[in-house]
């Protein structure tokens, strides 16, 4: 299966305790909040692209 997602930005977002809680990403031109859930197809694709070296997730601000 090919997902062919175009992910242009990805940045962790932290909760009030400073723990990463999700990733704010631009996917196919849309700003989305992606949960850190391996069963989520967007998160799985982000991890795949990070592993392939084509995407970097920025640290939370």
């Amino acid at each position, binding site marked *: *299966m090919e997902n*062919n997602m175009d992910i242009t930005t990805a940045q962790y*977002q932290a909760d009030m305790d400073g723990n990463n809680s*999700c990733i704010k990403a631009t996917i196919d031109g849309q*700003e989305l909040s992606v949960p850190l*859930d391996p*069963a*989520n197809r967007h998160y799985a694709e982000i991890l795949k692209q990070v592993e392939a070296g084509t995407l970097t997730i920025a640290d939370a601000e």
Partner: protein
Amino acid sequence: MTKARQLADLGNAYDDGALSNRNMIINGAMQVAQRGTSVSSISSGYNTIDRWAMSFDGDNDNLVLNMEQSSDAPDGFNNSLKLTVATPETAVATDEQASIQYRIEAQDLQGLAFGTSTAKSLTVSFWVKSSVTGTFALNAHNIDANRIITETFSIDASNTWEYKAITIVGDASGSFNNDNGIGLQLTFFLMAGPDREGTSADTWRSYLKDALATGINNNLCTTSGATFQITGVQLEVGDTATPFEHRSYGDELAKCQRYYYRLPPNTETVFASLFNARHVCRVPFPTTMRANPTASTPTWNTGRYGGGSFLSGATLTINTTFPTTDGYGWDVSSSTSPLQDQSGAMALTTATTFDAEL
């Protein structure tokens, strides 16, 4: 069909354990389209009709397809998924393909007993109509075991609704995980390059790209203005196609919302003030979603918050989100500081979507 034949088919369905809830396909009648009813120049993924995805590989030089939820359907149905070739492919080369896909959760396939000697057959039936005659390929892919089987069906007459039924034998060699990931993926190939149609695979075998669309032979995607429509898709246990199991719109919508949920504009959402200018907003889901969903970025009408005086005109910033399968929360800061512990409601200005699709 005679009454005796119908009774025999019913008996077969009983033996296969599928007298009710026979259809394993959600939204097989293409009734639900939460994302919208028409999209031009579609891409891989989910475009319009719930649960039905498109897949494209390779460059597909210049192929452009439009997708819509059409009201043209065979008797007994009100909708179909319709694809129109807006710009045709010039030549179907290696690595290129266009297909419609449907994905089923692995935990919903346990009754098939795949991977055992009692693995059950499946029958997929559907109505199809195309302006182009020819042979199309359909494969079933056990994602967990990475095994496939490929069958074909033909469009015999152009622009005519035709009913098709294809039986897929059970697979004694590959089981499905008992989880919420993809178990089985059905792929209706509209177009496939020569690297996907070389090896015969009408029995289950280990995944082989060369066998994905064996037997496909049509000019749909190379014909400008060509159309392809499908509806009434049913996947059931057994080697007999029974009549389509119609479900109410409400039932289908609820099933679809396990995978995708759309909150429309003007939905009132409740905010609770935490401290200073920090708030939490949370919305419950009507159905437990398959996984923690991806959410679009909401915007709110601050002019109506708390009766109009609390955060009127404030600029809101989402600090982080709290996704769960049962609801979604946002941690939101405002440019003004209301009283601590004050709560209010605020309407969404645009639709907000939650995506837990396979």
